[in-house]
């Protein structure tokens, strides 16, 4: 048997194995109305018929119809069914990985409810098991598996950065009680970071620490499992996803905390909060919350005193897809911004209808698709421009990086900041 035939046979076995009731429903129910096209930033930027969600999903649906669906097996030409071959597998890489951020905007605009995560996720998962995950994405996962975090930061560097930020914070607020507790047993909250904060944006660690300290939270960080990210989510690799999520779970369990607070990381929050327990088939003995939810809670309860007059420039907010549409955190950022900035303006649309920035789905780790990614970001760039905002706030690192790139590419002249930066700046530090 030739290599090609072996590959496609293996692909078909994996494909059938991954068919769930939810996936089959999404595969069956599409009526090709094309309504999803006007919801997709890839299609809107290019008007290329191949960029419409229905076209992309049909690359997978064709195989389903040929091999599983009744009519497709008997009369493939009638329903556009097709055998899976190497050419179609490569198309899966180019479309499922290269032209879809899994933002699900098409899903909430589909009259039927066809879910791209079910269908293109099928394709991504099969490709991952065949070893055809795009190299950059797989490399990020491999680094995480090997080093405990996706940037390969050593424990020594991690602790050093924390100590440095603790010093910076104490100098900023002139209060030696503002500390970053490390591995504190039985703290109420364990906080996780995005490794990019440790490497490139350490001031965000300072901001988080300031917020926790000002709110009088009993918190800690763990050196055992501190990485909030989980790029296995993008590769639709539940085994690796479970492995990475369980490291954080173990860290929280070993410290005996009540809650795990995820740093401002859209996919990380979704992976740990909404997928982790499903991957590992058991419930965590602690709650998983987003740092955004905690900040809102602190302000609501009066634990965090904030002064919005510190943030006078116009601010708009970009809703990370994994946090809002797939994660349920929509009102909290608005509650926070209403109390921490003087001039807040919404992008249209926003909330669960927000457009993806283009950085989702692991896109930033897949440099081979960078050109399409920036082209597809045109819609987001236009949204930002329309607000006339000076600052774009968000609560996701992939979004942060993508928005910074959009800013440069489309010459928007905005500043991109995490929500916690704005909150930290607005804190009225209470000495006693």
């Amino acid at each position, binding site marked *: 048997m030739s290599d090609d035939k072996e590959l496609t046979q293996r692909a078909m076995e994996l494909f059938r194995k991954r068919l769930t009731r939810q996936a089959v429903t999404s595969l069956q129910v599409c009526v090709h109305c094309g309504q999803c096209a006007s919801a997709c930033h890839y299609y809107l930027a290019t008007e290329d018929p191949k960029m419409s969600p229905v076209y992309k999903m049909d690359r997978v649906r064709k195989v389903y119809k040929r091999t599983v669906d009744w009519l497709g097996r008997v009369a493939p030409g009638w329903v*556009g069914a097709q055998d899976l071959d190497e050419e179609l597998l490569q198309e899966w890489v180019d479309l499922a990985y290269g032209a879809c951020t899994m933002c699900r905007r098409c899903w909430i605009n589909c009259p039927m409810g066809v879910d791209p995560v079910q269908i293109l996720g099928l394709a991504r998962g099969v490709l991952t098991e065949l070893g055809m995950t795009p190299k950059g994405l797989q490399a990020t996962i491999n680094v995480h598996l090997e080093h405990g975090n996706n940037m390969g930061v050593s424990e020594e560097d991690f602790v050093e950065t924390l100590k440095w930020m603790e010093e910076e914070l104490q100098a900023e607020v002139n209060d030696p009680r503002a500390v970053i507790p490390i591995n504190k047993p039985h703290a109420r909250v364990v906080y996780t970071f995005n490794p990019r904060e440790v490497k490139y944006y350490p001031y965000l660690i300072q901001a988080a620490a300031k917020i926790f300290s000002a709110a009088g939270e009993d918190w800690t960080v763990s050196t055992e499992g501190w990485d909030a990210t989980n790029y296995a989510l993008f590769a639709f690799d539940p085994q690796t996803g479970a492995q990475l999520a369980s490291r954080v779970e173990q860290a929280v369990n070993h410290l005996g905390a009540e809650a795990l607070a995820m740093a401002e990381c859209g996919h990380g929050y979704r992976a740990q909060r909404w997928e982790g327990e499903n991957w590992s088939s058991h419930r965590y003995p602690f709650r998983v919350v987003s740092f955004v939810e905690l900040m809102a809670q602190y302000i609501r309860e009066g634990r965090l005193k904030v002064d919005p007059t510190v943030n006078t420039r116009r601010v708009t907010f970009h809703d990370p897809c994994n946090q809002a549409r797939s994660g349920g955190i929509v009102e909290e950022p608005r509650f926070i911004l209403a109390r921490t900035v003087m001039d807040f303006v919404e992008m249209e649309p926003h909330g669960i209808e927000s457009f993806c920035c283009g950085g989702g789905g692991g896109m930033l780790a897949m440099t081979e698709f960078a050109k399409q990614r920036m082209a597809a970001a045109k819609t987001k760039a236009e949204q930002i421009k329309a607000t006339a905002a000076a600052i774009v706030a968000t609560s996701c690192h992939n979004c942060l990086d993508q928005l910074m790139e959009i800013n440069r590419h489309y010459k928007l002249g905005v500043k991109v900041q995490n929500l916690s930066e704005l909150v930290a700046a607005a804190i009225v530090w209470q000495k006693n």
Partner: protein
Amino acid sequence: MLIERLHLYSLAFMAAVYVVRIVWIMRFRLVRDLARPKGDSLRGAALAMTTMFRPWSMETTRTGFIQWIEFAVFHVGIAVMIAMSFVISLAPQWLTPTVIALVITSQALALIAGLLRLVKRVREPRMRAISSPDDYFALVMANLLFITCALATLHLPAATELYFILVAVIIAIVPFTKISHYIYYPFARYFYGSYLGRRGVAQ
């Protein structure tokens, strides 16, 4: 009458195929969600079932309201056409002049919507790129049914016979075409709505 018996046999065949189809789909593994809910999945599912009746709740129907009107008119026409397949044979006394006028109006409007859809599918590149013979067939059949249904309510014998033959044919083959989407619709909306509802994101 032979025509009525053909209609009943087709309905029975369609029902049998749908039962088999639903049993088949239920054999696929249902992925259960262990994550602690933030909202009410049942409320989300209930809301999702009614989304298409609330065009303001979805961006593409809110901004493309004319398309929503076309969708509504088309599907009301389908519902009336299906109802007439029973009324004409089982309760012809209900076909008063007013009812006939309403039926013909609904079928005419649905035909306009159906023809517009067909033209769009042929002319627009993004629609052509996703269309198979099954897609064109569904629209052609729907349009033919709208025409013959309208004529059948006027008791034109040839039209009535053609209408019932087309109804019998379409009923028998619907489970094998994309027209069967209405069987999967409740499942898809349930999964969609319960997912969003569970995450506290009900639309």
